[in-house]
Structures are given as structure tokens and as C-alpha cells.
């Protein structure tokens, strides 16, 4: 009896589940292009929610402090002066980026979620394709085009939040990658304090000189799968840019080209017989953390990283691998192309950048007010407040960068010297899988496979991901 009832109930639930699952995609905002931009435009009582991967006392705590201490009170006061009663709620998260992404994707899929949501620029493509986010003009209308902030944000930086030539959000920040080096070790190895290599060969030469020192790993260029996206962003892609190629160009993915093989060959020289890098470190699950610790304790000579490394890792005050003498000991240099002029667009030096941004939830009840809040958060005053709360950051706005970064030599170096030559990843839904394929290729080379074989294996893995219907260039 009881069992029968149980089974009956189960069958009923199963049927409901199937029906729900089947129609889930139809009514869950799939492909929704935003509602009516003028909806609630004249409302006098407005509630807006900001969702960010920041939390007081934890991850990105400065960002959280900026929102609670500056954005919310200032914006509320501004609106009050206009006779609008705004309540802003702040949904703090502060967890691993992938977990955060899962959570906001669930929110957006179910038609819920904050009105303004921070996302990594690299998610723009997959979120847009899923219909979770919409072009800003579809949500907030003409006001978007009229915003005066756009002209302060370089085209390349805007690309981070752009998909199919439409802006889905406003960039919040950007970064750039350089080679950090330890000046003390350089002096011991007879290398100049103002070192600036102009080719890959000069990097290798410096590494060979450092190799003579006892207990020093000359070069850390991220390789392998455990380092994840750090391998692609801090290793493979800047090197690839140094061969004049990009991973996605002219609507095709880059297969086993000459450039890809050259990059893998560089990895082979670093992690091969000469052991200019530590191949085992690349296989360790916490290898990246360890490489930071080793650099901080003077056991790594050169390391390729973004400004994040300077701000949050070896920062003597709040870093996780603090270097008390960071300002005296740590030098930096631009990443050279394979040889002068061989880089992307014929450049001598290259870099890669990522960026985060904020989007407006297409399901917002108050599109105009959300847009207003979004532009407020991207106003020069807001960025200045952010820097005064959280320390120097590279903002997307040229006007802010010019003034606010003056106090920090590395940050202004990146803003002035690196951003003009940098490149961005394609914000496409397939990119994360291609990135994993690149990581696999570097892992193979770092553990002894030849560059050609690794390139071939990469090519076939790439075909498995994007298909071999001519969308791969080789």
C-alpha cells in the first residue's frame, strides 16, 4: 500500500519535473532583450540591488567598502535632492569566481538577481548567448548613447564588455601584464637593475645568468592545467601576441600555427633540459601560490604577472606573500615580442589584459534608475573615491588614471606604457574550453613533449571543441 502510494507520488513528481524542465527554457527569459526602457522612469520610490563578488572583511573588501561607504550614501542623497526616495541594497558575495558565476547565472536564469551585477568581462559572450544579459541600449534606451563617459574609456577597454558589437556593460577596471624581476638577484647575476629585454632570447639569457645562483629558479612563466586561466593569461597568450598572432582573429580560432608552435617551443626551452623554470611547480595544485611565495622570499628571479601581483600579493601591507622591501627590490619590464617588431601589429612589446564590468539585469523594474546608478558608479568622482578607499587601481577612464595613479610607479607604468600595447581575450562562450586546450599543450611541453607534437595534439583538441568546419586557422 504504502509503497504504491510512494511510487505513485514519485511518478507524479517525475511528470511534473519533466514538464517544468521542458518549458523551463521558454519562459525563463531566454533571449529576452530587456523590457521597456521607460518602465517606472518617474517612480518616486525606487529599490535597487547591487550584486558584486566583494565582501566586507574578505575578498575585495575595498570594493565592498566603497559601495557601502560611498556609492550608496552619495547616490541616495543625490536622488533625494531630486525628490526620489531610493533604497539601495548590496548583495555581497566574495567567493571563488566560478562559484560566483554559477550563482548569478542561476539568478539570471530564474529571472531574479540584482539590478546591477558585476561580471568578469570574459563571461559577456556566454551570458549574452544564454539571454541572461542584454545590450545596454535595449535596457535603458537612448540614455546609453548619450553618456559622456564613453569617450573617456578607450575602445580596447570597452571591448571587454562588448559582444557582437554591442555594449552589454560598462567596464570597471582593467589590468596589464609585465615581467617582474628581483633586482637583488639580478645584481648578483651581473644583470642591470633597469633591465628591459627586447626579445625572448634576452629573457632566456637573463635566465641562464640567474641559473648560476644557488637555490634560485630563474623564470616563472605559468604552464600547465592546475594554474588554470593564469597559464593562458600570464603565459601562453602574451607570448602568442609576441609572435604577431592572436588566439581568435578574423572569426577563426588559431590552430597549430607557426606562432603557437614557437610559443610552445619557448616553453620547451624554459622547462626542458636547461631547467630555467621549475617544471614540477607547474604540476602542483597550489603551484601558483607557491611561486608567489618563492618570489617573495627571493627564490624566483623573474615572474610574469598582472598588476594584481603588485597590489595584492607582494604588497608589504596587505599582500598574501608580503615583501617588506618590495619598493626597493622588485623591478618590472614590458614583455618583449619574440624579436623586435615581431609582435602583434608589428609591436616590439606586448601584453594581455582582462577586465571586469557591470551589467544591468534585463529584468530590472527600474531600468532608468539602474542606468543612472551604473553611470554614477563609473563617474570620475566615484573612481577617485574608490582609489582613496582601496588604493591605486587602473580604472577604465583615461581622465582618472592620469591623475590618480601618479603616486604608484608600477600602476602608472602599466597605465601609460602597457595599456596602449595590450590585447584582450575574445569574450566568446567557447573561449574557456579553448583556454583549457592551451593549458594542456603547455603542460605537455613542460613535461617533455616536443613543441610540434603538442601543437598537433592541441589542433585536434581544438577541432573537438569548435568543429573542423573551417573555423580554425592553421
Amino acid at each position, binding site marked *: 500500500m504504502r*509503497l504504491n502510494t510512494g511510487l505513485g507520488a514519485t511518478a507524479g513528481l517525475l511528470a511534473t519535473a519533466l514538464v517544468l524542465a521542458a518549458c523551463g527554457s521558454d519562459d525563463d527569459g531566454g533571449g529576452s532583450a530587456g523590457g521597456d526602457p521607460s518602465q517606472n522612469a518617474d517612480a518616486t520610490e525606487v529599490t535597487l540591488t547591487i550584486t558584486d563578488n566583494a565582501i566586507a*572583511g*574578505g575578498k575585495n573588501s575595498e570594493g565592498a567598502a566603497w559601495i557601502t561607504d560611498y556609492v550608496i550614501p552619495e547616490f541616495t542623497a543625490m536622488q533625494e535632492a531630486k525628490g526620489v526616495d531610493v533604497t539601495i541594497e548590496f548583495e555581497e558575495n*566574495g567567493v571563488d569566481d566560478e*562559484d560566483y558565476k554559477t*550563482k548569478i547565472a*542561476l539568478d539570471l536564469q530564474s529571472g531574479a538577481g540584482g539590478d546591477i551585477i558585476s561580471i568578469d568581462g570574459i563571461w559577456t559572450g556566454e551570458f549574452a548567448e544564454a539571454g541572461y544579459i542584454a545590450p545596454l541600449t535595449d535596457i535603458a534606451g537612448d540614455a546609453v548613447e548619450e553618456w559622456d563617459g564613453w569617450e573617456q574609456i578607450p575602445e580596447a577597454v570597452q571591448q571587454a564588455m562588448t559582444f557582437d558589437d554591442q555594449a552589454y556593460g560598462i567596464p570597471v577596471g582593467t589590468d596589464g601584464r609585465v615581467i617582474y624581476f628581483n633586482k637583488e638577484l639580478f645584481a648578483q647575476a651581473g644583470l642591470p637593475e633597469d633591465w628591459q629585454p627586447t626579445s625572448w632570447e634576452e629573457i632566456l639569457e637573463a635566465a641562464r645568468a640567474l641559473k648560476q645562483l644557488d637555490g634560485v629558479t630563474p623564470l616563472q612563466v605559468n604552464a600547465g592545467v592546475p594554474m588554470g586561466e593564469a597559464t593562458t593569461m600570464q603565459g601562453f597568450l602574451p607570448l602568442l601576441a609576441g609572435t604577431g598572432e592572436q588566439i581568435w582573429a578574423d572569426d577563426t580560432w588559431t590552430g597549430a600555427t607557426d606562432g603557437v608552435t614557437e610559443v610552445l617551443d619557448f616553453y620547451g626551452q624554459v622547462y626542458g633540459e636547461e631547467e630555467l623554470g621549475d617544471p614540477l611547480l607547474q604540476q602542483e595544485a597550489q603551484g601558483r601560490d607557491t611561486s608567489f611565495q618563492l618570489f617573495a622570499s627571493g627564490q624566483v628571479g623573474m615572474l610574469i604577472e598582472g598588476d594584481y601581483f603588485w597590489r595584492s600579493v607582494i604588497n608589504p601591507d596587505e599582500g*598574501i*606573500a608580503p615583501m617588506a622591501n618590495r619598493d626597493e627590490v622588485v623591478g618590472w619590464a614590458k614583455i618583449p615580442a619574440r624579436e623586435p617588431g615581431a609582435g602583434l601589429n608589428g609591436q616590439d612589446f606586448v601584453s594581455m589584459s582582462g577586465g571586469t564590468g557591470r551589467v544591468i539585469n534585463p529584468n530590472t523594474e527600474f531600468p532608468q534608475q539602474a542606468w543612472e546608478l551604473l553611470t554614477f558608479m563609473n563617474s570620475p568622482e566615484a573612481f577617485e573615491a574608490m582609489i582613496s578607499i582601496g588604493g591605486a587601481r587602473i580604472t577604465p577612464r583615461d581622465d582618472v588614471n592620469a591623475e590618480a595613479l601618479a603616486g604608484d610607479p608600477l600602476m602608472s607604468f602599466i597605465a601609460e606604457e602597457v595599456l596602449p600595447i595590450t590585447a584582450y581575450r575574445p569574450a566568446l562562450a567557447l573561449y574557456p574550453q579553448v583556454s583549457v586546450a592551451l593549458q594542456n599543450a603547455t603542460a605537455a611541453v613542460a613535461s617533455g613533449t616536443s613543441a610540434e607534437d603538442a601543437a598537433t595534439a592541441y589542433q585536434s583538441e581544438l577541432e573537438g571543441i569548435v568543429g573542423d568546419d573551417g573555423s580554425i586557422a592553421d
Partner: protein
Amino acid sequence: MTVRAALGVVGRYVFAGFVFVFFALPLLWLLSAPFDTAPSVQVSLPDFTLENFRTLWDNPYAMRSLGNSVLIAAGTMAITLVLAALASYALSRVRIPGRDTLLYLLLLLSSIVTGTAAMVPTFLLMTELGLIDRQLGVVLVLTGGLLPTAIFILKDFMDSTPRSYEESARVFGASSLQILRHVVVPIARPGLATIAVWAVVQVWGNFLVPFILLRSPDRQPAAVVMFTFYTEGGQPNLALISTFSLLFSIPVVLMYLFVNRRYGFRFHGGIKR
């Protein structure tokens, strides 16, 4: 004491010593890192400081999250224990064809629900039920996941308790619930204690369910807050993580010691006479 018995005692303590070292060795890091100003992934004499504890004390969510963990764990444990005791007792005493198979199938299904793929249906279900951002929702989802295992384990204990007491109690006119409460539960106590500890441990470390289902950090349990002690680049802040882990472990250990003493696994024979 015979030689053989003496050897037995020595053997026992040598074994206990080895096991102790095996289990304690990795834990050393938890004793050094929280008191270090800049801990790394190695055990060393700390550059002593209590600053990490102060930082956590000042953190707006850290201490509160421990309270949330206790609340969620206690709620889940209580509901699981009561429902599982009722169900396993009935399943143990009344013959239902196919009950063991059904139970095992439920057990297997519970392993799906721990995965990420199931998080999406769960999330949408909880949205429909209006249980998002409520700790009750977390408790119910966790309870649903724990119940099959709890019933599965408890049924073993119910099966191995003698029925004669129940018959006597019935003769004296006790109701089924009274029999369960005053006769069966005391006998099955070691089993219930196991389930209680097991349930708390499962809930205590669970990150994904509360993270997905709760919105405000005020309500998040410690397992979620633990993950906020990373940098924007995903590097762990070992000073805070190790310190918080230490604090995080204390309530469960206390609970275990309490349950152990009070309801103990220590009865010599579950049947108290």
C-alpha cells in the same frame, strides 16, 4: 595479569599511539599557522601573533556565521533525527515488500543531489517555493539529502533491538509513539548518536547548498564565509583561513564530546538494564 594480557595492553597502546600520530601530524599546521603573522603552506614555529583572531573578531560576518552554522546544523540534525527515527522504526517493524531496494535507490539518488548539476533544479524549485534566502530552505534541502542515509543506518540499529520490551509495553497499553519514545529510542541511542554526529558533520562543511540558496551574507554559515578569505586572484589568505578553521572546528568537537558523554557510544551494550 597474565603475560598475554599485558602484551595485549601494550599492543593496544602502541597501536593507539601510531594512529594518533598518523591523524595528528597533518593537523599540526592548524596549531602553527593561526598564530603566524604570514603563514605559508608549511609547519614552522610561528612568528607569534594573535592579530589574526582580532581581525576575525572584527570581521562583520565571521563570528555570526559560526552561529548560523550552529543553527543550520542543529535544525537539520533535529529534523533528520526525528523523521529518520520514525521512518526507520516503522520500516524495521512492518514488512513492506521491496522496502530495502527502495531505500537503497533513494540512497543512490542522494549522491546525485550533492552534485552541481542538481543545484540548478534545486535552485529553481526553491525559488518556486519561496524558500530562497531562508535558512529553513537550506535545512530542508540538506535534510532531504541526508534522510535516506540516516534511515538506512538507523534501520540496522532498529533491527537489532529486541522486540520483547515493545510487546510488554504494548500489553500495558502504551501507544506506538510512546513505545518509540520511551522504549525504542533509549535502546537505539548509540545509533541515534552516530546519526546526529554524522548529520552535523555533513552540514558543517557544506558550501554549495547554503551559498546558492542564501542571499544575504548575514545568514550564510561559516563554510561559505571561509571562502571569502581569498584575494581577487583566488589566492588564499592563509592567516585568516587557518585561524577561522580553528574556530570553525571547535563547535563540532565540543558537540561530539557532549554527545559522546551524554548519549555515548560508550554503553557496554546498547541495552541498558
